[in-house]
């Protein structure tokens, strides 16, 4: 919402300065986003008059103008369609900075003709969006004067960012009312005396709505004015419109814009001679269309409300008028519309057709239903004053759609909800200033909501009204009481342990990424996931569905980094992945990858490619950080299809209790994603972490450190290649029972001395006696037990 200080003061009697007004508006919830004084940016621009305009010899759309600057005559090449002799415009001379572009204007040749300056549009002066033509100053503007003053722009412009509930402040008068309530002055009285009609309107208005659509237009007042003469509106009006970025067009159009800005009461004026038969307010029919004053053809549908004549829709209700009945300089008879249109239907129609207008902006936020008739009277007065003519009696369809609403109110709620001990008298006085009538009965208050406030529904709204006028700044700050002990909290989350995993992975040299929860269907294809994950309205084809796994996103990130010359990396992300749309389908994962070489080349350590055991180490370390007893996990050689089938593993407690998968990413998957390998990765299922021991003792059991000498024995077993080391180790542990402290594989060998298809596994076993030192015989007995158990379990022979 933009308006000038002068415009505001037409409705508010105040001594307050601009800064106070701006601060008060913000404190009231009408946020002052910007104050600009165009006079400052328009220094150097002058009023100039076009003396003559001839077609450019070498360009159809250009004219060569002789222009009086007040000091001399200059030649200017101009492309504006409205450039013509006698026009007074805004001249930028060479050397002037053009506000819209920030560039210094230079003299230049345009198609062979030297142009000694520029006649500006509102867009070029950054006053508006209008590129259609150059500014036309009022005829009494003096050539050579400062343009800012001639434009009426020595009046500061306030730009408010309004919340959608405050449709009442989309008019200058509503803003003045709020300021007056806040004690910043007095709202000036304003009342329109009805202007009697002298004849009956030749155009009638009827509603034609199906039963369920009567609220589309509850109230319509129309008036015929005959014999008027359209032309430029008065200078004061043109200046006001220019100041807020609207281009004055003609008196008929400018009056409707004035009504919109000043009262938040959009109106429409039809050229009555172009209307065939009476007007009907109805829903559009299938296949109807309308060419709007925005220059676009709009295809209508039966959800949209239109004002139509006997033949066709003439205007899109509350949004935009039609070209066919638009007013021109030749217009002599008009039909003026002042109506109320349903906010929801107006919003839906506007969105569907993608039309944004000042009228739509106001109707969808709610226009004051009590202003239909007074608005008509004010518009009539101005039109008669500017254009002459003779008004008809008003034609009315429907009736004032004011909802009589009262809200029960306990003034004590300002303290108990709002936190301010405001005296009851003061609270009620604030509400009165805002237009609320108190229907008090026996100490019980019921507040009658003013017609312009569609946003007030309950007591809490009234508390806010009192608070915002009193000032949120004046709410005393209270410290929060300590958390009550009797509350029932949400179930404990994994937060702390997830944090441990995050920081332990980072401590292992991995970099944490946060990537989209989305990816493309193409990328997702290699990682499973259901088609239910596809969005109906994705932001782009690259992000058209929810991710079934985090891995593709970080693999693609690795690819992007590789393209920047950083192919060796370790990345992880902790976040959600999705198997479907139910809450249970969302899983919290910690997934990571390592790509390329394990590190840079080094003089001491030969470089090597990452392999699946790097991923296994990451997976185990992550789980260990979360408190998982990783020693008890089994590793099985299986996992999802996006891993290399021979280099994939699963860490689990049992088939139904999988904590992690890891391995080398399948080369085919990397090719599908167009990322170079090798890349290894892991995925930790954080929702499967065993529940932490939250309750009970924090004390540890006593340390059980045996005083007896531990013994280490090495074995080399020859087994078939297919035998898993894990199975062999399990057999060792089982055979040696309680006495085993540690079992390690320290060599895997194939080659000379080992039969083809076989391998040698060298393991060391550390035995820890608990009761007494082991004798040689006892050690030999355990060793024998180990060898025979391993043989039984895996067919292994001791290597000779």
């Amino acid at each position, binding site marked *: 919402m933009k308006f000038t200080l002068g415009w505001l003061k037409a409705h508010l009697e105040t001594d307050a300065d601009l800064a106070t007004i701006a601060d008060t508006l913000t404190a009231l919830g009408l946020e002052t986003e910007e104050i600009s004084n165009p006079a400052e940016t328009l220094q150097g621009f002058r009023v100039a008059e076009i003396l003559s305009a001839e077609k450019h010899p070498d360009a159809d759309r250009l004219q060569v103008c002789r222009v009086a600057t007040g000091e001399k005559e200059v030649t200017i090449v101009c492309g504006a369609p409205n450039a013509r002799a006698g026009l007074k415009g805004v001249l930028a001379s060479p050397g002037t900075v053009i506000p819209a572009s920030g560039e210094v204007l230079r003299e230049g040749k345009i198609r062979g003709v030297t142009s000694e300056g520029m006649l500006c549009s509102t867009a070029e002066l950054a006053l508006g969006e209008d590129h259609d033509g150059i500014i036309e100053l009022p005829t009494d503007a003096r050539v050579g004067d400062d343009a800012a003053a001639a434009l009426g722009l020595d009046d500061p412009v306030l730009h408010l960012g309004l919340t959608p509930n405050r449709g009442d402040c989309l008019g200058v008068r509503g803003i003045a009312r709020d300021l007056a309530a806040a004690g910043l002055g007095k709202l000036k009285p304003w009342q329109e005396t009805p202007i009697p009609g002298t004849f009956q309107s030749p155009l009638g208005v009827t509603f034609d709505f199906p039963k369920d659509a009567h609220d589309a237009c509850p109230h319509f007042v129309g008036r015929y004015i005959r014999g008027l003469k359209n032309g430029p509106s008065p200078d004061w009006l043109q200046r006001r419109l220019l100041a807020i970025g609207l281009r004055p067009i003609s008196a008929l159009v400018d009056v409707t814009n004035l009504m919109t800005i000043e009262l938040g009461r959009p109106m429409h004026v039809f050229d009555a001679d172009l209307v065939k038969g009476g007007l009907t307010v109805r829903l559009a029919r299938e296949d109807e269309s309308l060419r709007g004053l925005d220059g676009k053809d709009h295809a209508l549908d039966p959800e949209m409300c239109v004002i139509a004549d006997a033949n066709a829709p003439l205007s899109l209700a509350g949004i935009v008028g039609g070209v066919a009945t638009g007013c021109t300089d030749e217009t002599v008879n008009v039909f003026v519309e002042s109506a109320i249109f349903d906010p929801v239907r107006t919003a839906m129609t506007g969105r569907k057709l993608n039309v944004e207008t000042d009228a739509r902006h106001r109707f969808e936020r709610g226009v004051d239903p009590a202003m239909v008739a007074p608005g008509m009277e004010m518009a009539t007065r101005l039109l008669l004053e500017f254009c002459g003519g003779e008004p008809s009696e008003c034609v009315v369809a429907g009736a004032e759609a004011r909802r009589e609403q009262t809200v029960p109110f306990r003034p004590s709620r300002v303290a108990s909800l709002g936190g301010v001990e405001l005296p009851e008298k003061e609270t009620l006085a604030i509400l009165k200033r805002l237009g609320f009538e108190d229907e008090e009965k026996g100490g019980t208050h019921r507040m009658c909501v003013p017609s312009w406030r569609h946003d007030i529904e309950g007591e809490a709204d009234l508390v806010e009204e009192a608070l915002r006028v009193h000032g*949120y700044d004046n709410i005393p700050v209270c410290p929060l009481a300590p958390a009550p002990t009797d*509350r029932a909290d949400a179930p404990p989350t994994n937060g702390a342990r997830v944090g441990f995993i995050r920081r332990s992975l980072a401590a292992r040299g991995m970099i944490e990424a946060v990537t989209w929860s989305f990816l493309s269907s193409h990328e997702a294809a290699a990682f499973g996931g259901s088609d239910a994950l596809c969005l109906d309205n994705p932001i782009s084809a690259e992000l058209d569905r929810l991710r079934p796994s985090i891995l593709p996103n970080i693999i693609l990130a690795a690819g992007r980094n590789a393209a920047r010359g950083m192919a060796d990396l370790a990345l992880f992300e902790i976040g959600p992945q999705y198997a479907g749309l139910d809450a249970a389908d969302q899983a919290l994962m910690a997934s990571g990858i390592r790509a390329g070489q394990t590190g840079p080349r080094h003089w001491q350590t030969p470089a090597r490619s990452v392999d699946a055991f790097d991923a296994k180490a990451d997976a185990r370390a992550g789980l260990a950080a979360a408190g998982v007893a990783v020693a008890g996990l089994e590793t099985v050689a299986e996992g999802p299809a996006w891993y290399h089938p021979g280099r994939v593993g699963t860490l689990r407690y049992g088939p139904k209790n999988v904590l992690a998968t890891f391995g080398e990413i399948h080369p085919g998957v990397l090719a599908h994603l167009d990322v170079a390998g090798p890349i290894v990765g892991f995925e930790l299922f954080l929702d499967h972490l065993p529940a932490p021991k939250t309750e009970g003792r924090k004390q540890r059991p006593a340390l059980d450190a045996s005083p007896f000498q531990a013994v280490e024995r090495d074995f080399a077993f020859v087994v078939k290649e297919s035998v898993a080391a894990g199975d062999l180790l399990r057999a060792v542990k089982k055979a040696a029972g309680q006495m085993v402290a540690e079992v390690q594989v320290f060599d895997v060998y194939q080659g000379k001395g080992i039969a083809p298809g076989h391998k040698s596994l060298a393991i060391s076993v550390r035995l820890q006696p608990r009761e007494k030192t082991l004798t040689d015989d006892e050690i030999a007995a355990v060793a024998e037990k180990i060898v025979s158990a391993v043989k039984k379990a895996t067919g292994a022979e001791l290597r000779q």
Partner: protein
Amino acid sequence: MTDFKSLRAELLSEIEAVKDLDGLERLRVASLGKKGKITEGMKALGKLDPEERRAQGAALNALKEEATQAIAARTRFFKDLALNARLLEERFDMTLPSRPEREGRIHPISQTMDELLQIFGAMGFAVAEGPDVEDDFHNFAALNIPPEHPARQMHDTFYFPPDAKGERKVLRTHTSPVQIRTMQTTKPPIRIIAPGRTYRRDSDITHTPMFHQIEGLLIDRKTHMGHLKGCLIDFCRAFFELDDVPLRFRPSFFPFTEPSAEVDIGCERRKGEIRVGGGADWLEILGCGMVHPKVLANCGIDPDIYQGFAFGLGVERVAMLKYGIPDLRTFFEADLRWMHHYGFLPLDVPRSAQGGAL
């Protein structure tokens, strides 16, 4: 006795003169060995009368002790010499690089989340979570957002195709549905903080289709706007690590709170940089208000008995402000250079998490 004197002098000067460990060993054998001079002298004692034996024995023992110590000292000397000589041969070029290790980083979003949860945790807010894929009720209807509200439009909210019942799920547009889920299942008093990913169909310089929010909710019988101010002022001081942060509470509008406020933080804009904590400008950092009575009722909580506040803030926004990160979109690009620069060291755990004061 003259024998001893000359023997001692001879022995000690020999020890002094010996050139290496081998010579020293030979000398030890020659003096203290089985057939050494001192040992021989000991053997000869038996032939003496008791008085003389005692006198000579004592002298011999003293000499033996003295010689042993002198040899030991000399041995240490030669060993040190040898070690020093060896170590001088074992020089490394200490300017060579050590074995490479990777440097990990924590993403600024995680770091900021940790800080936020830490601060609100200290105020007694427990963490609550909810799904990213929501239904209309939890994301909109229960929050008093009417069907025709612009936020529900296809160009603002991500929708999934209708299911068999014709219902369309959405990606949550805010963390507020967690409020609803909590209030539906928990009897007040309630004090929760809900962090998470949120989604809006928006992509430009200052918007990304995914971002993070945290939502706070406090419901009891007495908490009012003054407490909301107190809570958020304490939070801003702790988060921005400033003793006095200028804050401005501005009336605003949200469908799910009444009264509603936006909170601006005082800042200074200079050369495209924003410094929090003073200056002439204000920057909006969060939205808040007293939970709308309709929202309470929608969750089965009696608004005539209970009341409380809710607030929500954008995690990226406060992270950018606190850490001077200029561009929102870079958060999600996983560019190593960015993450090394703006990321945090693995053990840079927010201070208060280690038990220190906020």
